[in-house]
């Protein structure tokens, strides 16, 4: 019930292409869905987040698409650049009496020239 499933585990995209990472959750009480970006040797950094009252949120080249009925959400990176090469984690949060995030297992994204 508390799991967040993330796919793919790794992804290689050509420069300028669209990178798409998908996540699915079970617990309908989740109501906040952030994406974190992590570079080697660094901690995760918040990239973009969405609440289930909207179906899409865009910030620059990064877009979250949210499908509440399917309990799925995805990250789209438009015009992918080599600097986007990192590990991406989706996460979910709900008011269960604690404030912990439940994370997906991560996607290692590599952008090739």
């Amino acid at each position, binding site marked *: 019930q508390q799991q967040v499933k993330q796919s793919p585990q790794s992804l290689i995209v050509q420069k300028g292409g669209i990178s798409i990472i998908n996540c699915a959750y079970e617990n309908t009480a989740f109501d906040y869905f952030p994406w974190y970006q992590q570079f080697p040797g660094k901690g*995760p950094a918040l990239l973009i987040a969405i609440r289930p009252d909207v179906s899409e949120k865009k910030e620059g080249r990064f877009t979250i698409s949210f499908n509440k009925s399917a309990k799925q959400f995805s990250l789209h990176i438009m015009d992918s650049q080599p600097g986007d090469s990192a590990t991406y984690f989706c996460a979910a949060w709900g008011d269960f009496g604690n*404030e912990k*995030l439940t994370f997906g297992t991560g996607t290692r994204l590599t952008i090739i020239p």
Partner: protein
Amino acid sequence: GAGVSQSPSNKVTEKGKDVELRCDPISGHTALYWYRQSLGQGLEFLIYFQGNSAPDKSGLPSDRFSAERTGGSVSTLTIQRTQQEDSAVYLCASSLSNQPQHFGDGTRLSIL
């Protein structure tokens, strides 16, 4: 700096020794979290503090793990009698209540 600060950044110790990991949260952040990230794995929740109290310790893997927070600020995660399976990156995050969590760069713990 203005971010979450963790120390040491790297720690190598022998099996059976005790280790202490420190987290300095962002000033004013009332919530503090510890997570563990094993090689190639996602982030595993360990413990959550609101102020100095820990309403959720459910992620601590064994009684060898403990954590405290003093003055509503600095937190220490202690691992006693370390085992090789404790090798991981230990991440700390802080936030205002119901706001996004901000992470430090972690402590890379290696147990020989």
